[in-house]
Every structure is written in structure tokens, then in C-alpha cells.
């Protein structure tokens, strides 16, 4: 029953995946990407959790209690910055595409392109 936590993370992950794959609006795709990635980060942090554990900082120690695993937190910090970089770059591209095509809808852009050719 405790693993319901992971199950719900997978649901969030799949939702993000679905938004990213199926929504044709680019901004939506980008939000979906962020949702998907933060679900993965939550998965990483959740696997490092120890019941009633304390944060891996010496000053926050609770005598008698275990620390949670610090490594996933460190990985997630890296991952968050990576995902914000990808987001920024993708948004820049979206803004430029909007300027050229007047729409942010990928399907519409593809249609306009095939008409041009």
C-alpha cells in the first residue's frame, strides 16, 4: 500500500508525457515537459526517503532518527536547472515561430508548411 506513492508519481509522469505528445500547442507541450520532468524528480526524491527521517544537514539532526538519502536530492537539484534551461530555449523558439507563422499550434504550422511547399 505504501507504494501507492510511486503509482501516483507514474500517473503524473504519464499525464505529462501525454500532454507533451498529444497537445498541439507549444506552450502546453512545454508545461507538459516540466510536469513530466518534475514527476521524475519526485520519483528520485521519494526513493531516497526514510520514514520519519530528517534532512541530511548536521544541524537538523534528530537524535535516534535516520537521515534521508542525500544523493537523489543532489541529482534533482542538477535536474531542475537542466529542465529550466530547456524550457527557456524552447520558449524562445516558440516566440520566434509565433512571429513567423502567427500560431503556436504545431499541427497548424505543419499544415501551413506543406501548403507552402
Amino acid at each position, binding site marked *: 500500500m505504501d507504494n501507492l506513492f510511486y503509482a501516483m508519481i507514474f500517473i503524473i509522469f504519464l499525464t505529462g508525457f501525454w500532454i507533451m505528445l498529444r497537445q498541439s500547442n507549444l506552450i502546453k507541450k512545454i508545461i507538459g515537459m516540466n510536469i513530466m520532468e518534475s514527476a521524475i524528480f519526485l520519483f528520485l526524491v521519494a526513493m531516497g526517503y526514510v520514514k520519519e527521517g530528517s534532512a541530511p544537514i548536521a544541524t537538523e539532526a534528530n537524535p535516534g532518527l535516520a537521515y534521508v538519502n542525500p*544523493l537523489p*536530492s543532489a541529482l534533482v537539484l542538477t535536474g531542475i536547472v537542466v529542465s529550466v534551461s530547456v524550457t527557456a530555449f524552447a520558449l524562445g523558439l516558440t516566440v520566434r515561430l509565433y512571429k513567423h507563422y502567427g500560431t503556436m499550434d504545431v499541427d497548424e504550422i505543419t499544415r501551413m508548411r506543406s501548403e507552402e511547399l
Partner: protein
Amino acid sequence: MMRVALEVVTLVVIGVLLLMVAQEMPSFGDPTNPVHNEVSRYYIENTEEEAGVQNVVAAIITDYRGFDTLGELTVLLTAIAGLLAVLRS
């Protein structure tokens, strides 16, 4: 319509598979999980002595795994260079 149905079916199948996997994963919050092995214990026990700081996570990102952080700074720089290249072209 067919396409939507196909997508929903695919998503549900993948979802059910993932839920089955979730059932089998090491249980949540259990201190005997394979993740809590000698590596994480080593970090927790030796950080103050080997890195001289109290926050273990900070020691990991800047000392034990500092190379990842260099990669991360490079990602930020790449994002800026790419964004400016795209916006200014």
C-alpha cells in the same frame, strides 16, 4: 476517433504496467531499501570531516559530484547562447 481510442488504450496499458511495476518496487520509506547502501551512509557520515560543511547535499553537488554541476552550468550557458542565437538571427 479511432486514433483517440488507440491512444487511450495505449496509455491505459502502459499505466497498468507501470502500476504493476510500482507494486513490486522496494517499499516506500523503508530504511533497508537498496538505495540506502554504503554510498549514502558514507556521504552522511564523512561529509563534515572530508568536506568541512554541514549540508550533505551541498557537499555532494560541489565536491563529490562537482563535475555534474559543471555540466549544469554549461547547460545554462548553452541555453543562453542558443536562445540569443535564435532570437537575434
